[in-house]
């Protein structure tokens, strides 16, 4: 991995909201074909960090590099031009319009006369949805009428249809049943084989541990550390999430608890 250039590198990212330092000096990188699990409690700053990458928030400090070149991301549109696509936890779908309209929202196909080419968009949507969810039929219904899994498919379809190079998935399976969760996992493995880098954000370690190549753990807006999943156990990662304790196989970050702090919590000392 050390010889490949990272797909994305975020250096020293910071942002605060009304005096609350939501993300404080976090640096992470993502390599092609890699799944990076971004873990932490609710409120640890995972989603906020990633929203700076997807252009939803503008960072107070820090720099973002895409393929080694510095990227200037100040809006969702900017992020998309760098091939960064996001599937938000809330899915970010407009409930009152249909799947095709959501899929192409902001990137509509236009006829030579400048009008919406709904037929072309529906055709493309049928194709991509067929790949994700072959049973999906409700192409002329507003997204409101779809099930949780179907809505999820639409959100995923929107992200992968435009040749994403970097995919951000924020709690992608939170609203799904076991069957659909399995589908999403298969999809992630498939996208990974295609060389797409994936940020997988979750507060639940079980969701990501088996899929991720590495995990990065955040606590109170700071990076506790990163670790390859084959060098640490689930318990190790839980320790990182809960008390900020960095295990031997991990690279500690600025948020890792010191020995003195760990002693105060009664946890066993570091090696």
């Amino acid at each position, binding site marked *: 991995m050390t010889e490949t250039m990272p797909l994305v590198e975020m250096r020293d990212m910071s942002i605060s909201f009304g005096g609350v330092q939501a993300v404080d000096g976090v640096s992470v990188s993502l390599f092609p074909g890699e799944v990076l699990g971004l873990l932490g409690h609710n409120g640890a700053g995972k989603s906020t960090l990633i929203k700076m990458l997807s252009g939803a928030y503008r960072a107070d400090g820090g720099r973002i590099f895409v393929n080694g070149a510095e990227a200037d991301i100040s809006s969702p549109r900017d992020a998309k031009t760098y091939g960064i696509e996001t599937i*938000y936890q809330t899915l970010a779908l*407009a409930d*009152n319009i249909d799947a095709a309209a959501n899929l192409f929202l902001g990137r509509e196909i236009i006829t030579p006369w400048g009008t919406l080419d709904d037929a072309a968009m529906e055709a493309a949507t049928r194709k991509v949805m067929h790949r994700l969810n072959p049973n999906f039929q409700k192409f002329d219904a507003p997204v409101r009428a779809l099930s949780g899994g179907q809505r999820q498919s639409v959100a995923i379809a929107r992200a992968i249809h435009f040749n994403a190079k970097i995919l951000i998935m924020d709690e992608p399976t939170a609203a799904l049943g076991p069957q659909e969760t399995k589908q999403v996992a298969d999809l992630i493995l498939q996208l990974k084989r295609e060389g797409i880098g994936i940020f997988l954000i979750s507060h639940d370690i079980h969701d990501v541990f088996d899929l991720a190549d590495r995990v990065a753990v955040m606590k109170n807006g700071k990076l506790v550390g990163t670790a390859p999943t084959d060098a640490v156990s689930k318990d190790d990662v839980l320790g990182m999430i809960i008390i900020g304790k960095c295990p031997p196989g991990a690279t500690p970050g600025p948020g890792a608890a010191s020995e003195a702090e760990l002693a105060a919590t009664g946890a066993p000392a570091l090696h």
Partner: protein
Amino acid sequence: MSHDAHGQPAAAASVGLPSRKTGVLQALEVDTRLLGMLGALLLIWVGFDLATGGQFITPRNLFNLSVQTASVAVMATGMVLVIVTRNIDLSVGSLLGVLAMAMGAIQAELLPQIWGLDHPLTWAATLLVGMALGAMFGALQGGIVAYLGVPAFIVTLGGFLVWRGGAWWVTEGRTVAPLDSTFNLMGGGIDGAIGATASWAVGAVVSVYIVVSTVAARHRRRRFSFPVKPLWAELCVAGVLIAAVLGFVTVMNAYPHPERRVAIDLVDTLRAEQATGGLSAETLALVDRMPAELQTLVADPTGGNRRALIRGLSDWPELPRPAHGIPIPVLIVAGVALVMHFLATRTRFGRYVFAIGGNPEAAQLAGVNTKRVILSVFVLMGVLCAISAAIAAARLQAAGNDLGTLDELRVIAAAVIGGTALSGGFGTVAGAVLGALVMQSLQSGMATIGIQTALQSMIIGAVLVLAVWIDTLYQKTRK
């Protein structure tokens, strides 16, 4: 699949097409909500017709009804978009007032100084300046809403007072009259209608347009091998639309000019032709058919003879009276509604308007410049207020500073009765126009049967609440 027979690729089957729809209404793909409104409208018309002993569903009354609806209907098409984006515009009535006053002052006081009275371009220049002013005022309000984050309710409540004050200020309260005679055609009336032949022409053009757009839409879906409506359903919908258009033309053409007006015109023609050396063959043939006592008056139609001739001709049952035809304000409404429907359903702008209404955050995250879209919606609303102001002032042939008072409520009610959801994200232009027609039908129907004004307001208010309640029930059962 049946598409294969037409040489279409069978790929459609592989991406999973739904099975052919069952049920007549489903096959027709008709908006049941719109259908319900048409039913309600019919009920209102028949009810008033019975209550007035057959005076409501007459060409004359329907002509007047359509003219009275025009101004509110034009604004309602814009209010749909405003409400769809989860905003509101309480200022449209006042905006109409100030724009009418401005247009009045421009055509009656400013332009005559430049190119004299009754210049053929006065109406166009006035309307253009009015629309530009409307766009500016709309941009001011929309800018404050979108970029400064002040709620639209407050901004336009402020606008409600500001523009009404402005309407007074333009001429310090003086009513501007008379207006330019060409400009006045926008208000309807005897001259403000296009006559029988042109009306049939308009009906024919619209019918052809309906056929062409139906075929084009079908062709587009075929190109991608999507399921299409059964042919009989397509023919049915197009047939009903064409019948409605031609029916409307027939009704408007069944309303002739009033006898006295025709008689005066005829006498003027006689005098003009006599002065320029003899009657034309056409006039001569008409004179031949007149009763003898009228023929003697024709020889010298001046002084007392002129008055007697006008009276006699007015009472002559065979006096040929030309038809009104489609009123110009109705043509304006049709044009505006077509453009607004196109904007709402066929353009990126319209798509963004609805996406913002459904989920503003999602639209923003998808890269939509939501602020600019909202600004544009208010600009559009301002332009439509100018068009409505022209119609309203032209109808009265005068611009007074109280023009458009309470129109904001009529416009919002029309949009809401027409199915626009105040929570945003849903509404149609056709519904709003129909809503405006329902409101106006109630109002003029009640006036016809002599219900007191105070009671009229109370009934309209109750109907508004009732309509929204029924819609709420409808939305619940549909889920």
